């Protein structure tokens, strides 16, 4: 396999940048362009996991940059191969020059994800761990970081392994009475099988359910900003995001598409979804946007319903119903915007008007930045995320989630089947299906294991 290289720090100008080289000739190629500070030093003989100061020079022996070079020796490196990491100064020019020199030496520019792929190929991690590396790199909050770290260390794989052992025991009991019906073995009673199936089902459900949290941690808690047109949704979004993401104008219906962005508030990621303003309109395109607004409400965990204090709509009741029917079971926060334009006594009227409404009420002015901190606090309260400790298994990958959902369906069919007294071969079919789906996450099921388990535990043979 070729020796690959790439800039491993984020693109752009930073204080420093790291260029990673991995492969059989990694040390040799780096040695060719590196001059150590200490003359007696020789990079080829550098011990593993030690850094060395020196400079990178081009063919003309001209200085490119002063750098720190760290050598990792196979198999004790990220990729499992020999790895050299060159820490240089963050200038784009310097980074490109060093990369260019390495390529001239014979390195190949790494494909996206190739370092992780090599780590996987060298058995440094399994599939779900490799997936976790991507999550770890992308993690933007402490919780999502803990979650990815846990998966990378194999916590999820271990949990599945435990489930698999239980399923194997279950299927062995069922297979025993199928294949060894003619032997005088004692068969497991259905009650015992059922409680085993329920336990397994509960474990799978717990993992599958953790996806709501996992997904929220990884991709942010979905928050829909809804309201009539021109109540200041986009302005509020800009304030929250601190940038001019959405188009803001005084023309009604400017936001026709759905705009999303995430922001980290006190360690929790929120994914704000700006939506087209809701109003009764004949405009076809705008109506499509409104329809999508409704869909977004359904996908959100938290609904920020934004109202303009200065001009409460005459459609208030119509609107309340429209939003409420789609927001059942979600946290709703009523945000009264443009509070700066409201007199104190008018505010009391407003309070009375919404007394019946269940959601929390916050008064702000997005444009004047009045009480946006209060809104942030309300969002954190509404998030209701459990604390994630490093021991918790949280599923955050949609592929894993789907496999778990399918496994759950299978095990539920087993439980139903036990209730209706169906024959063991159908139970077995569903258990095997369940194992198949769990296997899609980490591994596979082999029939020999079932037989081995049976022979190990039961007296067989006429």
């Amino acid at each position, binding site marked *: 396999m070729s020796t690959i290289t790439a800039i491993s720090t984020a693109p752009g100008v930073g204080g420093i940048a790291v260029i990673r080289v991995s492969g059989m000739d990694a040390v040799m190629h780096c040695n060719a362009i590196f001059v150590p500070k200490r003359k007696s030093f020789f990079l080829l003989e550098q011990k593993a996991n030690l850094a060395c100061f020196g400079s990178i020079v081009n063919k003309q022996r001209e200085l490119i940059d002063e750098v720190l070079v760290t050598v990792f020796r196979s198999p004790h490196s990220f990729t*499992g191969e020999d790895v050299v990491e060159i820490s240089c100064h963050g200038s784009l020019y310097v980074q490109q020059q060093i990369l260019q020199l390495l390529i001239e030496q014979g390195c190949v520019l790494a494909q996206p994800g190739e370092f992780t*792929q090599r780590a*996987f*190929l*060298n*058995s440094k991690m*399994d*599939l779900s761990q490799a997936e976790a590396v991507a999550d770890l790199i992308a993690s933007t909050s402490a919780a999502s970081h803990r979650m990815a770290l846990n998966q990378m260390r194999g916590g999820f794989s271990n949990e599945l392994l435990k489930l698999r052992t239980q399923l194997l025991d279950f299927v062995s009991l069922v*297979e025993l009475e*199928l*294949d*060894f*019906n*003619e*032997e*005088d073995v004692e068969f497991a009673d259905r009650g015992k099988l059922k409680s085993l199936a329920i336990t397994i089902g509960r474990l799978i459900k717990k993992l599958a359910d953790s996806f709501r949290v996992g997904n929220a941690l990884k991709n942010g808690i979905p928050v829909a900003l809804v309201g009539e047109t021109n109540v200041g949704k986009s302005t509020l979004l800009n304030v929250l995001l601190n940038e001019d993401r959405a188009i803001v104008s005084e023309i009604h219906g400017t936001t026709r598409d759905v705009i999303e962005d995430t922001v980290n508030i006190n360690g929790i990621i929120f994914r704000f979804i700006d939506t087209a303003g809701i109003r009764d309109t004949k405009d076809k395109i705008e109506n499509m946007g409104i329809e999508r607004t409704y869909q977004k409400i359904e996908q959100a965990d938290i609904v920020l319903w934004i109202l303009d204090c200065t001009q409460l709509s005459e459609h208030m009741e119509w609107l309340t119903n429209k939003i409420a029917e789609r927001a059942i079971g979600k946290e709703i926060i009523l945000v009264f915007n443009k509070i700066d334009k409201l007199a104190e006594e008018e505010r009391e009227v407003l309070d009375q008007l919404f007394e019946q409404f269940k959601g929390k009420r916050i008064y702000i002015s997005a444009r004047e930045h009045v009480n946006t901190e209060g809104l942030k606090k309300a969002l954190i309260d509404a998030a209701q995320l459990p604390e994630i400790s490093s021991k918790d298994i949280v599923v955050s990958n949609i592929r894993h989630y789907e496999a778990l959902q399918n496994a759950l369906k299978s095990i539920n069919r087993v439980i139903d089947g036990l209730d209706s007294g*169906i*024959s*063991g*071969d*159908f139970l*077995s*079919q569903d258990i*095997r*299906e369940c194992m*198949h789906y769990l*296997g899609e996450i*980490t*591994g*596979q099921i*082999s*029939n*020999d294991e*079932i*037989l081995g388990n*049976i*022979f190990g535990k039961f*007296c*067989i*043979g*006429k």
Partner: protein
Amino acid sequence: MDFKYDVIVIGAGHAGNEAACAAANMGSKTLLITMDMNKIGQMSCNPAVGGIAKGQIVREIDALGGQMGIVTDRSAIQFRMLNRSKGPAMWSPRSQSDRHEFIQQWVKTITNTPNLYVWQDTVKQLIIEKGEVKGVITALGVEMKAKAVVLTAGTFLSGLMHFGKNQLVGGRISEPASFGITEQLKSIGFITDRMKTGTPCRIDGKSIDFSKMTEQKGETDFHKFSFLEESQRELKQMSCWITNTNQTTHDELRKGLVDSPLYNGQIQSIGPRYCPSIETKIITFADKISHQLFLEPEGVDSQEYYLNGFSSSLPLRVQIDAIHTIQGLENAQLFRPGYAIEYDFFDPTQLKHTLETKRIKNLFFAGQVNGTTGYEEAGGQGLVAGINAHINCVGGNEFTLGRNEAYIGVLIDDLVTKGVDEPYRMFTSRAEYRLLLRQDDADMRLTEKGYAIGLTTKNRFDQLNSKKEKQAILTDFIKSYSIKPTQINDYLASKDSSELKHGCKLSDLVLRPQLSIEDLSEAIPALKEKIEEIGSRKEEIVEATEVLLKYEGYIEREKLIAEKLLRLEHINIRGRIDYNSIQSLSTEARQKLTRIDPETIGQASRIPGISPSDVNIMLVLLGR
């Protein structure tokens, strides 16, 4: 008689007979060599064919045009469909055969097959030139030429029998062993090892007190092994008898353990875990106070009984004393004792899916020499080896069966992919797609395949098509016939099945677990009439129709998963990867992949020791 043949088959047991008949019926000039013509198709162990998963294999052999099903029907003295209370994938035919009649039927079949010749002799050596087999040399000094050779020597290769401390050389009691072939194959690099199996004593029926035992009668309905209409059960039907060991029996057995070849180091090779000797049972499962035993009749005119469950190689005296403690056997007189036998087998991972050896062209192995056990497993392999031996003579595509097509496919794939570390027996749990491998539809799965290669007769093919046609007519009728509540509610009430509120299709009623097509025909004259119109094989056709209607949902789901997994079966890897150059594969994986040289990723994934991550690595390397 110039001793020149297309195919030579060595050994006339359950594998050899099928191989010889298949090759001859497909048109090869075939020679079957046996030590003793009077022992053709001898049942070395119990006089029974079929059982769970094994019965399905016999149905498959029959569906493809093999002989075992017909021979079994014609020699059956008891027939039962096992697992009837389970789903249709589990229904397994099993019969007791008249041992003598079984042999007679085989002799009749073989000697009446055109192109098939028999020679009584022992093969000493194979003629191998430039990596290709060319014929055999026998003990009588005859040199025979052949384009292909099928080795089906059973337990005869260097066979050694153990009766306590007594050791006798032989392939079966009172029969000589065979020497020479193993040594020759070993010298050219074949990997061979020893296996052990055992058999119980045979008892004189006159000395058995059946009144102290439980009778197990056979069934008399339409079921049988062969799909052919003309194959019927003809003999008088007999019962088996059930008794049990007790503490005293176990005490007697324990006394003899010092002289047990299994426990004093005399036997080193591994026996089958699922068919342990009685001494193994009392040691491994010491807390069990009793083991069930079956007395199986050996024939209509015979007093000989086979003591199923009491396989043993303990000294004769110990066996007798222990047997006399068993209810009904207090005065039992033995015809012969149980014994263990050790024999040579060849690591089956040295074979292709056609059962041709990878090392020597046109040389095929089938049956117990591949480390399997059971007449049915042997027969299934014999059939596939015989077919491919013929194909090698005339050219054409090799014949193999998939894991989703037949238990025979599962069997052979397991053998050539995983190898064996104990005598291999089929279980339904070995099949991933059990529901697709039912006994009722082996003909639907396989007869056309058999016909396409010229093995299945026109007669059998016509019978299949007629069955298909009739089944389709009945299915259409049931799916389209409308039922009104008034027409059926009284009947439903009598069956404890909930009454109809609106009309429905007849098929909706068939789906109810409490109702069968036959039951419903009692209440619906039009259905009864439709069934009567079927004429011959009507019970069989009604059953097949009902299985498909009742279990359609499950079967479809199984097919879905099968298709999903079959994706890996279509990714060919043979010759595409140099395993030794891939450092990322584990050392074990590299060695095993190199040795077994799997054809597809699917096969590779089933090799023991190949982990999912190894498979993923290969997929990544292949650019998937």
